[in-house]
């Protein structure tokens, strides 16, 4: 056995060495011709022998050609394909500028379809921007929710679950840096400003080993680096928020910048009213800001600094209230509110060491904060008294990572790297401060866990290998070491996928992967409020684990149509849920007292039809799935359907450019209602007593008229469906043809269906709540 293995390795090395010696390397960057922005995941392929590759997150590619090969074709969605010829027999570095295809005519041939990783779904930016936007807020996550296998957490919210997981199991990366809170306005809108988007990639199965730390999916978002050729400005005014984008080159075009920001405007609009009438003032605002500064020291060296922040704040400051207390005039003022958000600060150095080797080194800080508070201030004549209570939860990540790509051969690509991150958790601290009005005594108490550090160190590799024209493999391995004062784990994560290319454009893929998650999110199944509590793994609550395997049958036509059928089975361990009876506003001192640990299973099949380009583009998706949970201490230890279980889930997404400057978009969404819990019995008696006890003890019994649930999530809400429409008019500016202005009208829930948000029984009657009826909105964007 060992001899055979040795022989195989030797053969492999000799084969590679022989192969490499016969080639020349063509490498370079693929960019937008008008702005110089990199194009991520653009296709590169040689026509004559049908092999190829795709550009990486930096727009970089490297491909080895045989000496007699001299041309490459480049293609990218929304751009004209480009054929480039090479006469040089030596290694060559090129910059390929691709021209945007604004006419959006039917596409001839998009790419060599074989070399694209089928587990990675690229979301065309046009699809995101042209989709009808709820309240005018274009939302990348709401577009993701319409993909197969992805479901929203609640109507209208940007939280999403993937293949039976939970919302915290999605790794959301902004320029390779993870963020923890991805939504504004209690989850209604994503924190990603669409004006700053450069590319969006989504992975839910066969996730490359480069990505880890979450169980279910990866959303890889790249923000714009800035136009290398001219300065650009964009402003957008909507009903909910206004935003801006500034980007362009600095000196010698070696340095570019990009700054984008957004802020809600509702609170500003109502502010004058409150100031005039002097009523208790409250409000809510959210905002985000991203900034990037890129400097190209040479074509091979690039340094980027980036900053991102998002914040939501709700505040309620009451006016002064006066009353009498024991004959003395007393004034009272209350200030209460929430705030939460993220900060990211990162520096990254990209270098092309040689045509076959490139690396990125980065260092970053990423933080999440959440705070709730109530502050009462009482003034009695000249004395002041205070009563405060607050709740805080924070995470601060400090990380360093080094990612390398090695392109030894056309049919080989090796990604490898190391990373280390220190996660600092402050998982929910309640502080109570009280100063007694009569005695002047103060009480100052803090409850909650002590801050904890969790060190995560990772090494990984994944190897893309085309064994033959008909078979390609990706083998990856990720090894993570977790250490803190309480735990030490070393966790291996093997990943393996293979694709069988049957016919031109048809393929069959299968994969197995293991993923782990080193922190948990405690999340109420009842509320969608910022009560999320991130917790580090511990000996009591070890890291979450998932094993997933699945298959994918895919067919792509030469006209850009894609059909796919996928099936998956996922098993998850060490999931966390709030214990039965626990309340998110409980005053329990430790989160451990309100949590349970258990397992989950999900499986299903997904169908996807995607028309990527052309005047009419969009997709139809359908998912048939099951998502179950099993917790020993929940539902009497019986298995139950997860709150995110939706048996049937489908969507139709369409964009149609019916005139040169007019575009219409429509989404129709359907899904089975989500499970919820409803009591089935009213027990009017029942007690257990201990006669003859000296202390007349009586064991506790259900109180009279106890509402009894037979099991958790025993009912389902009615089925959900909704139609959204959007119209975009790109109005030319006659005197300034270089300017663009876009009017957008969106109508959310066109037929005003009051979909059930939840159902309840309050002891007297059944109630049903719905969130959104028809919701029109208008926005205006000016680019100059």
């Amino acid at each position, binding site marked *: 056995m060992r001899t055979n293995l040795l022989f195989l390795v030797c053969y492999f090395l000799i084969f590679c060495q022989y192969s490499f010696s016969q080639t020349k390397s063509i490498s370079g960057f693929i960019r937008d011709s008008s702005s110089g922005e990199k194009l991520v995941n653009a296709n590169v392929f040689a026509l004559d022998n049908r092999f190829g590759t795709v550009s990486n997150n930096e727009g970089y590619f490297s491909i080895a050609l045989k000496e007699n090969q001299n041309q490459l074709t480049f293609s990218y969605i929304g751009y004209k394909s480009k054929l480039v010829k090479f006469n040089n027999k030596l290694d060559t570095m090129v910059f390929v500028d691709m021209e945007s295809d604004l006419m959006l005519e039917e596409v001839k041939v998009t790419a060599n379809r074989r070399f694209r990783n089928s587990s990675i779904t690229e979301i065309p930016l046009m699809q995101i921007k042209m989709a009808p936007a709820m309240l005018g807020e274009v939302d990348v996550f709401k577009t993701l929710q319409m993909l197969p296998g992805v479901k929203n957490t609640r109507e209208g919210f940007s939280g999403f679950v993937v293949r039976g997981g939970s919302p915290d199991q999605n790794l959301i990366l902004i320029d390779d840096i993870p963020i923890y809170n991805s939504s504004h306005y209690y989850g209604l809108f994503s924190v990603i400003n669409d004006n700053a988007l450069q590319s969006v990639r989504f992975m839910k199965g066969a996730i490359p080993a480069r990505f880890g730390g979450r169980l279910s999916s990866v959303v890889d978002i790249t923000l714009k680096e800035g136009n290398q050729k001219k300065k650009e400005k964009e402003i957008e005014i909507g009903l909910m928020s206004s935003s801006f984008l500034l980007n362009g080159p600095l000196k010698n075009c070696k340095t570019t910048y990009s700054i984008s920001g957004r802020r809600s405007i509702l609170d500003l609009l109502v502010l004058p009213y409150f100031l005039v009438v002097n009523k208790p003032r409250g409000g809510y605002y959210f905002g985000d800001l991203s900034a990037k500064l890129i400097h190209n020291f040479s074509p091979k060296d690039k340094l980027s600094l980036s900053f991102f922040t998002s914040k939501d704040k709700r505040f309620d400051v009451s006016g002064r209230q006066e009353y009498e207390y024991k004959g003395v005039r007393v004034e009272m003022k209350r200030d209460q509110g929430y705030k939460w958000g993220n900060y990211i600060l990162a520096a990254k150095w990209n270098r092309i060491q040689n045509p076959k080797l490139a690396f990125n080194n980065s260092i970053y800080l990423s933080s999440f904060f959440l705070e709730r508070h109530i502050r009462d201030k009482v003034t009695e004549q000249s004395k002041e008294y205070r009563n405060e209570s607050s709740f805080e939860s924070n995470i601060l990540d400090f990380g360093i990572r080094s990612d390398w790509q090695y392109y030894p051969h056309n049919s080989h690509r090796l990604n490898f790297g190391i990373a280390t991150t220190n996660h600092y958790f402050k998982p929910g601290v309640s502080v109570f401060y009280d100063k007694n009005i009569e005695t002047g005594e103060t009480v100052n108490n803090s409850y909650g866990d002590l801050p904890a550090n969790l060190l995560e160190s990772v090494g990984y590799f994944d190897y893309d290998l085309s064994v033959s024209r008909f078979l390609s493999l990706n083998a990856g391995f990720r090894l993570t070491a977790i250490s803190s004062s309480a735990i030490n784990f070393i966790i291996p994560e093997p990943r393996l996928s293979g694709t069988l290319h049957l016919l031109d454009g048809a393929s069959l893929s299968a994969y197995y992967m293991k993923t782990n998650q080193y922190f948990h999110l405690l999340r109420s199944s009842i509320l969608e409020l910022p009560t999320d509590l991130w917790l580090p793994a511990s000996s009591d609550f070890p890291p979450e684990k998932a094993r997933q395997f699945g298959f994918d049958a895919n067919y792509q036509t030469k006209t850009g149509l894609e059909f796919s059928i996928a099936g998956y089975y996922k098993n998850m361990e060490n999931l966390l849920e709030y214990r039965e009876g626990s309340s998110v506003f409980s005053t329990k001192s430790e989160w451990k007292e309100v949590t349970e640990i258990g397992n989950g299973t999900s499986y299903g099949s997904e169908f996807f039809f995607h028309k990527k380009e052309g005047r009419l583009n969009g997709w139809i998706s359908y998912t048939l799935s099951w998502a179950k949970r099993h917790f020993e201490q929940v539902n009497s230890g019986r298995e139950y359907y997860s709150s995110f279980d939706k048996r049937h889930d489908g969507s139709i997404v369409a964009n149609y450019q019916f005139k040169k400057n007019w575009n219409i978009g429509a989404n129709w969404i359907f899904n089975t209602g989500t499970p919820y819990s409803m009591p089935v*019995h009213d027990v009017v008696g*029942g*007690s*257990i007593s201990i006669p003859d006890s000296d*202390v007349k003890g009586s*064991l506790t019994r*259900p109180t009279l008229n106890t*509402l009894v649930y037979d099991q958790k999530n025993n009912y389902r809400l009615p089925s959900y469906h909704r139609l959204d429409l959007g119209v975009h008019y790109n109005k030319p500016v006659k005197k300034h043809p270089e300017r663009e202005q876009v009017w957008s009208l969106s109508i959310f829930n066109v037929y005003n269906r009051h979909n059930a948000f939840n159902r309840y029984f309050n002891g007297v009657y059944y*109630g049903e709540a719905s969130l959104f009826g028809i919701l029109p909105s208008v926005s205006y964007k000016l680019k100059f």
Partner: protein
Amino acid sequence: MKRLMVLSLIVCSLCFISCDDILSDYESKSIRYDIGDYKPELCVYANYIHQKGISLDVSSTISIDFLQRGPEIKSAKVVLAKPNGQILFDDLVEFTITSLDYHKSKSNFIDINKFKFKPNLNDTLLLSVKVDGYDIVKGQTTIPALVNATKLTAQKYKADEVMYRFILQFNDPKEVGNYYLVSSVYYLTTIRTRQLSPTFIKRDTLSSATRYVVPNGDPVFDFMPNVKSSTKEPFDISLTKPRIFSDKGFNGSGYGLKIEVPLEYISPYDAETHIYESEYELELYCISKELFEGQKSSYMHQTIDGDIYAEPIILYSNMSNKVGLFGAINGPSKQKVIIERGDWLRFDKNGF
């Protein structure tokens, strides 16, 4: 252009108003909800008390719209047996009925002397209850071993502290099950009468009443805060309840269970004129797993009463129709301690 701008502004205003309204609150309405044909279930709460008998409480569930309820319960055919088929009790149990509350629970106690055979420790018991108009209901439990509480002490950390620490020594029967702890206090108040003589007149001001005292902390947490199982129990000091705790943290050895009980404030006048004596007693029972789980979920159910943000609770049931409970209890093992310092233990205002 101007028209377009004006039109846009009007649309924007309307949208803004609608959005503000929509986002400020969601629509909630009462709905007609057809619960369909409801099948009332027999709800049996039964508890085997070792060497004493079975307390039995039988009622009918009703639909949550109160419209559908089961037939009146007048008697129940009760069978208690062992898994090997040995019948311990098999008889018809009658209940007293009042006309107005026929749907409410009916209680009875079946004395051990009525049993054909008496069960032993660690025996598994099978209970079946049949009432006319309902399906037969079955449950199963195991009689736990007897715990032996050996000593109870009481002391203050410091003389001026307003807290007492009680330590109950007990021997844990290995693999026994779980525990149920009842605490009580019995007061004697002595009124100081200086004028008469050095001899005080003693008077029992509470007429022999016993009261539940309120532990400041949960005994298991205080006793072994780092043991994994201690975090599993839903203790809440704000609740009026006896204490139950799991056997998971014990391994058959001797233990000391720490309970902190706060003291009531005594006015200077009372301190000058009264002397208090209190007798603090602890009863420790072993309870079956079923009873433990049932009590645990019942406590939690009370805890969240009225809290709309709380996760729903599935009341534990080991009965065949998933309503009710059959448990077993063994004990008590009692220990007393007298506090003569004149301190007044804080008792539960709602206790008795």
